C-alpha cells in the first residue's frame, strides 16, 4: 500500500473532473478561433487589417511599452526603499504603497477626470494605469526582498562592489520572478481594462470591442478585434515564460538565513520620504479625496437606498458565489498538482492559466454566444455569470490552495486513518482543515476581483441584476459623477480588507 501511495496516477474521478473543468476553461479560446474560422479569410483580413486597427495597435503597444517598465521601476524602487533601507516609518509605508490596489482602475480614472477634466490620450491613460497597477509589482517585489539571503550581498560587498552595483548585479537578478510575474499581470490588466480608458477617451482593443458590442452585440468586427486581443495576451504569456529563466534562487545548505540588512539612507532620507509621499499622494490620497468630494457635493440626494442596497446585496452575493465556486473548482486541480505532479496536471494548469489571461470582454462574448446558441437554459442565469468569474479568476484560488495543500502532507492523512478515522473523515479532518486558511485567502482574492469586475458582468448579468461596478459605470457614463460616488466608495470599502489580506499573504508566500 505504501508503494502504491507514491503512484503518480491520480484518482480517476478527480482527474476526470479536473479535465472537464479544464476543457470548459478553453471555451473562450475556442470561441475566438471558431469565430475567426467561420468569418472567412477575406472578411477577417478586411476587418483586421484596417487603419482603425492600426490606431488601436499603436495605442495598445504604446501603453504596454510605457506602463510596464514604469510600474516595474516604481514597484521595485518603492519596495526596495521600504524593505531594504532605513526609510523612516517603513512599516506604515509598506501598507500604504499596497493600498492603491483597493481602488479599482476605473474609480481612479473617474477621480483623475474630476481633478483634470481635459485628461485624454495615451499619456493620461499611462498615468492612470501606472498609478493603479504599480502595487501589482510592488507587492511581490517587497515580499521577495524581505526574504533575500543577505549572505550573497555581503559576499558581493566583500568582493568590492559598491551598494549600487550590489543592487543591480545581485539584488535585481533575484527579483526576476517578481518582476516577470508582476510585469505580466500589469500587461494583462492593460489589455483587459475598459472603464478606466473609456472614461478618458483613450482607445484600446478592449474599448473598441465594447463599442462594437454596443453597436452590433456580438458582430463580426468585434469578434475579429477580440481575436487580435487574445493573440496579444498569448504573446505576453510566452514572453513571460521565456524571460522567467531557469536559475535557482533558493538557499541550499543548512542553517537559518540571516535577516536582510537595511542600507543607511543618510542624506537621501528626505528625498526618499518625498518620493514615497508623492507616490502615495497621487495613487491613494487623490482618488480618495475626489470620491469624498463628490460624496459631499452630492449631499443626501445621492444615497438612494432603493438603488444602492440591491446593487450592494447583489454584488456581495455574486462575490461570495464566485469565491466559493472558484475555490471548489480549484480544489481538484490543486489536489492533483500537489499530490500527483506530472505532465497531465501541468497541462491542466496551463489551460487555466491561458484562460485567465483572457480579458473579461472576450469571456463575456464567448459565453453569451455559446449560451444563446448551444445552452439556452443557461442564458442570462446567475450560474453562467458565476462560471465566467470562475474562469477569469481561478488562478487566484489555485495558487493559494496549492500552497495550503502542500503544507498538509498526505502522511498526516494516513496517520489519521491508522488511528482509526475513516478515509473520508481523515480527509475532512486533516487535509481540508489544514488547507482551509489558504482556501479562505484565495476565496477572498476572487471576491475582490468579482466586486470590481465590469465587462463580463455587463454582458452576462441576469435581467434585473445590477452590481456596484455596473451602477457606478452607468452613472459615471451619464456624467452623473455625484450619483456614482457612493458606489465608488462602497467598492473601495469592500476591497480594502481584501487588499490588506493579499498584502499579508504575499509576505508569507514569497518563498514559494
Amino acid at each position, binding site marked *: *500500500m505504501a508503494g*502504491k*501511495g507514491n503512484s503518480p496516477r491520480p*484518482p*480517476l*474521478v*478527480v482527474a476526470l*473532473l479536473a479535465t472537464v473543468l479544464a476543457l470548459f476553461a478553453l471555451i473562450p479560446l475556442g470561441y475566438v478561433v471558431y469565430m475567426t474560422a467561420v468569418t472567412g479569410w477575406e472578411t477577417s483580413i478586411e*476587418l483586421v487589417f*484596417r*487603419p*482603425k486597427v492600426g*490606431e488601436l495597435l499603436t495605442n495598445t503597444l504604446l501603453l504596454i511599452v510605457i506602463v510596464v517598465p514604469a510600474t516595474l521601476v516604481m514597484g521595485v524602487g518603492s519596495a526596495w526603499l521600504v524593505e531594504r533601507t532605513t526609510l523612516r516609518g517603513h512599516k506604515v509605508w509598506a501598507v500604504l504603497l499596497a493600498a492603491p490596489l483597493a481602488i479599482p482602475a476605473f474609480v481612479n480614472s473617474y477621480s483623475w477626470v474630476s481633478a483634470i*477634466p*481635459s485628461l485624454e490620450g495615451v499619456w493620461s491613460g499611462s498615468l492612470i494605469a501606472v498609478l493603479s497597477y504599480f502595487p501589482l509589482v510592488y507587492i511581490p517585489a517587497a515580499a521577495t526582498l524581505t526574504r533575500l539571503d543577505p549572505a550573497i550581498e555581503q559576499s558581493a560587498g566583500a568582493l568590492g562592489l559598491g551598494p549600487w552595483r550590489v543592487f543591480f548585479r545581485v539584488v535585481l537578478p533575484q527579483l526576476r520572478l517578481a518582476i516577470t510575474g508582476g510585469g505580466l499581470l500589469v500587461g494583462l490588466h492593460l489589455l483587459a481594462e475598459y472603464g478606466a480608458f*473609456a472614461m478618458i*477617451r483613450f*482607445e484600446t482593443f478592449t*474599448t*473598441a470591442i465594447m*463599442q462594437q*458590442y*454596443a*453597436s*452590433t*452585440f*456580438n*458582430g463580426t*468586427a468585434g469578434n475579429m478585434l477580440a481575436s487580435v486581443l487574445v493573440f496579444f495576451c498569448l504573446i505576453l504569456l510566452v514572453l513571460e515564460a521565456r524571460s522567467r529563466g531557469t536559475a535557482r534562487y533558493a538557499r541550499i545548505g543548512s542553517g537559518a538565513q540571516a535577516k536582510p540588512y537595511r542600507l543607511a539612507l543618510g542624506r537621501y532620507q528626505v528625498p526618499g520620504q518625498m518620493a514615497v509621499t508623492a507616490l502615495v499622494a497621487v495613487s491613494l490620497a487623490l482618488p480618495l479625496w475626489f470620491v469624498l468630494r463628490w460624496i459631499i457635493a452630492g449631499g443626501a440626494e445621492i444615497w438612494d437606498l432603493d438603488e444602492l442596497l440591491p446593487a450592494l446585496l*447583489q454584488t456581495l*452575493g455574486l462575490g461570495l*458565489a464566485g469565491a*466559493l*465556486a472558484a475555490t*471548489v473548482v480549484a*480544489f*481538484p486541480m490543486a489536489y492533483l498538482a500537489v499530490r500527483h505532479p506530472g505532465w497531465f496536471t501541468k497541462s491542466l494548469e496551463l489551460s487555466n492559466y491561458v484562460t485567465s489571461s483572457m480579458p473579461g470582454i472576450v469571456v463575456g462574448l464567448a459565453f453569451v454566444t455559446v449560451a*444563446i446558441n448551444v445552452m*439556452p437554459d443557461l*442564458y*442570462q*442565469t*446567475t*450560474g453562467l455569470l*458565476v*462560471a465566467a468569474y470562475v474562469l477569469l479568476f481561478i488562478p487566484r484560488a489555485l495558487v493559494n490552495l496549492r500552497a495550503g495543500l502542500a503544507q498538509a502532507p498526505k502522511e498526516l492523512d494516513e496517520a489519521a486513518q491508522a488511528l482509526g478515522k475513516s*478515509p*473520508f473523515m481523515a*480527509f475532512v479532518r486533516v487535509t481540508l482543515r489544514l488547507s482551509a486558511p489558504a482556501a479562505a485567502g484565495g476565496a477572498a482574492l476572487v471576491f475582490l476581483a468579482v466586486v470590481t469586475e465590469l465587462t463580463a458582468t455587463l454582458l452576462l448579468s*441576469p*435581467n*434585473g*441584476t*445590477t452590481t456596484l461596478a455596473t451602477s457606478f459605470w*452607468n452613472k459615471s*457614463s*451619464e*456624467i*452623473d459623477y*455625484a450619483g456614482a460616488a457612493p458606489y465608488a466608495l462602497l467598492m473601495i470599502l469592500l476591497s480594502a480588507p481584501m487588499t490588506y489580506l493579499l498584502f499579508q499573504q504575499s509576505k508569507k508566500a514569497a518563498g514559494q
Partner: protein
Amino acid sequence: MKIRNNALAGIALLATATLGLAACGSGSATPAATAGATSSAAAAVSGEITVYNAQHESMTKAWAEEFTKETGVKVTLRQGKDSEMSNQIIQEGDKSPADVFITENSPAMTQVENAGLFADLTDEVKKQVPEEYRPSTNKWTGVAARSTVFVYNKEKLTEDKLPKSLADLANPDWKGRWGASPSGADFQAIVSAYLELKGEAETVKWLTAMKENFKGYQGNGAVMKAVNAGEIEGGVIYHYYYFGDQAKTGENSKNIASHYFKNQDPGAFVSISGGGVLNSSKNKAAAEAFLAFITGKKGQELLQTGKDFEYTVGSDVPSNEKLTPLADLEAPTVDASKLNSKKVTELMTKAGLL
C-alpha cells in the same frame, strides 16, 4: 487505496453539488425572466414582464413603477444600448426573455421589425399616437422624441460663426473643433438620417471627412462636458443633455448654448424613440398594456414633468415648456422604418469611426 479513491470521489461529487447549489441558490435570488403568466385577453393583466430598455433608465423606471402601481404587474428591466439589444433580441429569436423593447432611436426598432419579431400594435396605442410618430407598418410606436442639436461654447463661438448645416462640419476649417460620440446609437441615428436623405456616396464622403475633423467621446454627456470646458468649440448631440444638466447642478452646461440647424437639414433630424411588443412574449396582454400605458396620458405626463426632457408624442400631452416646440424645428421628413442601422455601422466601421 481503493477505499481512499472512493472517498475522494465522494469529495469531488460533493464539490460539484455545492457548486451547482451555489449557482442555483443565487440564481433564484433574482426573479425568473418571465413567469409564463396565464393572462388571457381579458382587461385585467397580471404576472410579470421583462423590458429590454435602451431608453434612459430613470425614465423607464418611472414608467415601470407607476405601471406596477396601477396594474400589479411586476416589471423587470434589462438595461443596454439600442443596437446591442436589437441584435441581442434577434439572436435570442423565439426564446427571447424580452416582452417589450424600448429604444432611444428608431433604427434598432426597424432592425427588430425587419427580423419579423414584433407583434402588431393594439388599436389603443394607434389611437393614442399620431401617425407621424409611428411607422406605416404599425409594428411599433414612437414613445418619445429627441432632436439633433449643435451645442457650442458661448465664449468660443458667436452666432455668425455657427455651421449652417451638418455638412459644413466636414469642411477643413472645422478640423479639430467639434466632437461627437460615434459609438452611441444617438449619433448613429443621425448618420442613418443622413444616409436616407443624401444617399450612400455623400454619406461616405461626410463620414470620411468627419474622421479627419472630429474628436470622439464616449457618450453625448461627455461631448457636452468637453464643449463646456472649451476643449472643443461645438458638438453634435441631442437636445436634452443641456436641459438635464441645467435641472441638476448646471455645472457641465454653464457655457453651453444650443443651435438647431432647422431648414430640413439632416442636422435637424428628429429621432423617434420606439417601443414594441415582442411576438414571442409569454405575457402579451401585460406587455401590450405597458406599451399603451407609456403612450397614454399618464405615461406621457411622466415624460413631460420628468427630468429627461424628451419630447412627448402621444395622447396630446404637450412637451415640457422649456423645450423649443417640435413644430418650430423644421425637421426633415424621414420614414423611421427606412433607417438602416446595419448599413450605418458598416459605413462607420469602414470610415474608421468604430
